[in-house]
């Protein structure tokens, strides 16, 4: 059989590794079904794909743009790693022929004098195959390596690893392992409502929740005309970027002006920010209920700003009707920034658009608020009426990734 012409630039399929060790039984199949759905949704605009699922591995096949598919799948929570791969008949000589081309191609661009450590790693799910895995390792290495300069076998710490997976009729061969986010597929842990402001933290919190299997909806508060449409557009852009990690997101835009002017006019100035945030929790809880979310999600981090002391978080949380998830509560700012860079939200977050928290900012905000004081202040505001009106004016936007 003639060796196929293959190029590292044009793999034929993507092998996907996934799954947490602890997952068993019913959890496992729900995990896999969600993952398959998410893979299909993420790749639908790239190419038509065919999915094969077998023994803890998913393989995705497409006639074109396979490398793009592999890179796109690196964003999908639940995926540990992906390998762009090629396939051939499941017989030793065919495997050697294909492996030879793949290794040669993959090592072509390394510096001429560099010595590369290397090993072959076979897995054999087809027991009818005439060799064991270690026999196949040696069989391939013996035939491929002599033709390549500056390469040595290192079974423990090989820099380059040629992977071979032998199935019933076909073998899949690959060199690269591209990391995915890990975690759990979006959707397996239900839905959460993220309060998003346009800053650095809330998008990162949303990503972390997605990575733990939450499908995240978003709510933002808009105080037009004290802040402009560009601030809303910024939040839309952030949600669009985050939608790389989950299919379609819902964003609720709540008109917040009347609530803020009422608080400004009728409540003690130091309590303004805490009261804004209590309204945000209240409104988010109502929207969460309608949107079948089981928790609220915020980017709060302990002590980061005046409203994020334990006392103030207590005041704020007291207005929530659902548990509040705070993935960043113990994060340092630098760690959140690092993640924001990694998930591609940082450069949008730092655009200097004001958010509604900057409207009528108190000159001396309360640091250690008391729930009773909040409640006393709110007794004069007509809370229910304000909440009802804000919910009536809420706009719902469906946002898809442009990835």
């Amino acid at each position, binding site marked *: 059989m003639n060796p196929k012409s293959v190029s590292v630039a044009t793999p034929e399929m993507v092998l996907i590794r996934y799954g947490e060790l602890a997952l068993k039984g019913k959890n496992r199949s729900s995990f896999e079904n969600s993952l398959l759905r998410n893979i299909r949704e993420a790749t639908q605009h790239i190419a038509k794909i065919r999915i094969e699922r077998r023994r803890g591995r998913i393989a995705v096949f497409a006639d074109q743009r396979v490398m793009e598919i592999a890179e796109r799948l690196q964003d999908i929570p639940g995926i540990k790693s992906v390998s762009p791969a090629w396939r051939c008949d499941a017989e030793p000589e065919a495997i050697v022929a294909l492996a030879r081309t793949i290794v040669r191609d993959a090592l072509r661009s390394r510096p001429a004098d560099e010595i590369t450590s290397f090993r072959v790693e076979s897995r054999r799910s087809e027991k009818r195959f005439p060799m064991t895995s270690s026999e196949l390792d040696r069989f391939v290495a013996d035939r491929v390596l002599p033709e390549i300069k500056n390469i040595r076998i290192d079974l423990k710490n090989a820099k380059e690893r040629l992977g071979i997976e032998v199935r019933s009729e076909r073998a899949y061969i690959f060199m690269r392992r591209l990391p995915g986010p890990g975690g759990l597929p979006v959707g397996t842990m239900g839905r959460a409502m993220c309060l998003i402001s346009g800053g650095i933290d809330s998008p990162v919190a949303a990503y972390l929740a997605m990575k733990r299997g939450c499908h995240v909806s978003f709510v933002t508060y808009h105080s*037009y*005309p*004290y*802040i*402009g449409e*560009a601030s809303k557009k910024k939040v839309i852009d952030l949600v669009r970027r985050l939608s790389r990690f989950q299919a379609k997101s819902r964003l609720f835009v709540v008109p917040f002006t009347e609530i803020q002017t009422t608080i400004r006019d009728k409540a003690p100035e130091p309590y303004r920010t805490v009261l804004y945030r209590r309204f945000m929790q209240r409104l988010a809880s109502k929207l969460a209920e309608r949107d079948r979310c089981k928790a609220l999600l915020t980017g709060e981090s302990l002590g980061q700003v005046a409203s994020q002391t334990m006392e103030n978080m207590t005041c704020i949380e007291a207005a929530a009707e659902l548990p509040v998830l705070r993935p960043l509560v113990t994060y340092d700012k630098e760690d959140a920034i690092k993640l924001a860079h990694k998930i591609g939200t940082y450069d949008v977050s730092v*655009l*200097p658009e*004001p958010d509604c928290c900057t409207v*009528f900012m108190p000159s001396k905000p309360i640091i250690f608020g008391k729930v009773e004081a909040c409640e006393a202040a709110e007794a004069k505001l007509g809370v229910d009426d304000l909440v009802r009106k804000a919910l009536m004016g809420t706009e719902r936007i469906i946002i898809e990734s442009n990835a």
Partner: protein
Amino acid sequence: MPTIYLDNAATTPLREEVLDAMTPFLGEDWGNPSSVHRRGVAAREAIDRTRAKVARAVGAQPARVIFTSGGTEANNLAMRGLSWRGAQRQGAIWIGPTEHASIRACAVALAEEGFSIEHGQLDPSGSLDLNDCEERLSSETVLVSQMLVSNEFGSIYPVDCLAGLARAKAPEAAVHADAIQALGKLHLSLSQLGVDSLSLSAHKIGGPQGIGALVLARDLPLRPLVFGGGQERGLRSGTENVAAIVGFGRAVELAVEEQGAALESMKVLRKQLVEGLQKIGEIECLEPGDEEMQQPGILSLVVPGAPAEVWLHHLDSRGVVVSVGSACQANKKEISPVLLAAGLTAGQARQVLRVSLSGQTTSDEISTTLGVLGELVKELASL
């Protein structure tokens, strides 16, 4: 709610006559002007007719009109193309104190490449400080760039005097003038101004976005920014945007034709606006420089209390459209260096709203705007 559009220095609505002139070239009269078949030749002919119209508006030879993707590219072409002297990347470049970002950013890039940059300044009255210019220009100077009309204050700068100074003190220098806010508002003549090049833009005068021109007074060794098929005498390659060019030509024709009437009307409206603001109190008009040296369509205001941007959104929500600082950077929130050059503090600069009129603005619109501003003073001045 009808919109009162007072942001004409940012862009203007496409005029109906302009759209009519463009439409055939977006439909049946398509063709590549470089093609030698009849379609191509017809497109070429349309461009050449337009070239003559634009040239006439500024007193240039048609062949010296180079169509670009807009004002920014025209300014870039002047800055980068005229500072070029063979392989040598050195010499001094003088730029005016209130230049548009497209000039300032080029200067920063050219400084990195080895040029030294001199910045002009305004005198205490807000006029261009010509004494300072005289000191800074020298035989080392290779390029001088000064806008004709400030896009933020509407001040008209004495480019002719500056060009005279440059000829005397810096005989090697090419003199460029950004005339983007002057087109259709001032009488433009390359020879009267004594400059080597002018940049123009269509969408400030009712033309389409995405088209402008650099017009040269004489044949200068200009190095292109865009290389390729040799269009625009090799100075701006790329298939021409025929419809936009034709629209530009029609807009220029109309702007020049109506210039006198538009100016008269804007003068009256400006007076109405300034007097009305005086009655309201609290809002200050920024009118630096000589009263005579003012393009009446542009007026910057210092508003009290809430930042100018909050005023902008409140005006917008009531149907009045204005801008803050310079529209091109309104997004960046960096303090406009132009406002600082005019002597404002950073705090004051955040309070600046720009109102810009057109020949189509009406007295009723100004009255309504004054009414809205009066209401907003009560609401926002104490924030």
